[in-house]
């Protein structure tokens, strides 16, 4: 059948790519667990991913918290607006928007940078040079990025949660005229540990995905500048899609049924 052949080919190519990515991920993780470690490199990546992402993640979170408060007010105005707004803001931020938006922002900022840096190292023979100098590129390049991203994303999400709730508070108190103490008390009452914990688990997974995609596409880039550009695009797009897909899966695992 002439129709089936191309479908089969695409399917096989998909399976092959998944296998390659799986092998890459396993190799990367196994090198995270075995010495030698590179604390300087891990520290450098932590600063890069954690500290320098604070402004971007903070801005995203504050506007998201503000808009959540505003939108829920127009929707819930006729009912018990005050408690509804506090609940909507704190639950949306901690469960979903904090981790997802922080993940997407970091995918754009860090995933792209990783793919570009490692891709450039690939096309300028720096990765070959590492190997010839008896240094495993997985150990030197991939493992520090995976470790740093998994460690820093949850920190960023805690920050995003606080800033996001603060954004909702600002609108509720200064624009909608609610009582500040009541608002904070309601927020605190609605919040369950599981909301925050699920968000942090998501963050760690998203951090892993962003670093994995950045390293994978960079490592396998070929050709010159064009190949590196393509790797960068692929890293951001694939990380973003995976973040949204895993967000659903993790949500279903925590809150399903």
């Amino acid at each position, binding site marked *: 059948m002439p129709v089936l052949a191309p479908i089969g080919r695409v399917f096989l190519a998909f399976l092959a790519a998944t296998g390659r990515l799986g092998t890459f991920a396993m190799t990367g993780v196994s090198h995270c667990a075995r010495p030698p470690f590179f604390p300087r490199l891990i520290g450098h990546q932590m600063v890069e991913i954690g500290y320098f992402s604070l402004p971007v993640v903070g801005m995203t979170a504050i506007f998201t918290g503000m808009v959540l408060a505003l939108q829920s007010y127009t929707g819930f105005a006729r009912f018990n607006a005050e408690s509804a707004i506090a609940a909507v803001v704190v639950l949306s931020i901690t469960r979903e928007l904090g981790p997802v938006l922080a993940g997407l922002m970091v995918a754009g900022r860090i995933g792209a940078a990783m793919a570009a840096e490692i891709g450039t*190292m690939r096309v*300028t*023979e*720096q990765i*070959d*040079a*590492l*190997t*010839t*100098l*008896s*240094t495993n590129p997985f150990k*030197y390049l991939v493992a520090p990025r995976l470790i740093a991203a998994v460690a820093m994303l949850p920190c960023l999400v805690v920050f995003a949660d606080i800033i996001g709730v603060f954004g909702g508070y600002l609108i509720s108190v200064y624009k909608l005229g609610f009582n500040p103490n009541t608002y904070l008390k309601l927020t605190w009452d609605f919040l369950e540990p599981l909301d925050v914990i699920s968000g942090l688990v998501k963050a760690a997974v998203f951090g892993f995905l962003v670093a994995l995609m950045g390293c994978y596409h960079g490592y396998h880039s070929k050709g010159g500048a064009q190949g590196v550009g393509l790797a960068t695009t692929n890293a951001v797009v694939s990380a973003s899609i995976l973040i949204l897909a895993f967000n659903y899966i993790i949500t279903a695992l925590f809150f399903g049924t």
Partner: protein
Amino acid sequence: MSATTPKIALRDLKKRFGDKRVLTGLDLVVAPGESIVVIGGSGTGKSVLIKCIMGLLQPDEGSIRIDGEEVVGMRGSEREKVMRKFGMLFQSAGLFDSLTVWENVAFGLIQAQGMARDEAKAVAHEKMAQVGLGEEVGALSPAELSGGMKKRVGLARAIATDPEIIFFDEPTTGLDPIMGDIINDLIIDCVKELGATALTITHDMASARKIGDRIAMLFGGEIIWDGTVDEVDRADNPYVEQFINGLAEGPIQAATA
């Protein structure tokens, strides 16, 4: 092992990328302390040849013996032990642009041999002096260097760990003739100083004549001619004749057209 064990022995080496057959059954023997130059046009697989020998690429078929030991299929710590015998000057120098010049030169000493940074820095300065670079260059970043200086740093890095076998991938490409000749002289001096075996690939005949004890010509995925530097001008081989005289007319064009 007897004194006549070749340093490098390749037998029936084959490598293809998809449908493209790059090496099609290549044989080559290099004696200890010998300096061999492999000549051939662009895209004939010279870099692929070196990368197969170093284990950066996996050959599809054939045997590679280093000091009589089969290295095809070697992995892990065994592979690392063989890798320590190698040094390489990459075509694009392959310097790590996140590190300073001296850190580049000292990389193999610090990472592979576990030498203390201060000690490694002293060795790096010594090796840099050997290739005509002052200590003040050590603190620069590779991005600040000219093409000729990059090659010098790459050379210093290649010899820093006192390798037994050094590979030079087009050492004079992209340099003006005078700088090219300076690099040729440095290569000869460094190889002699270490008593190393050298395998150079190039399409620059002046460089090949100067560096090599022996010249081998790669064409169509095989070594089609092999002899001393004196013999190359008297070679009774139309391919070699065309290549060393740089003629547009001849069997090479006819064969690739």
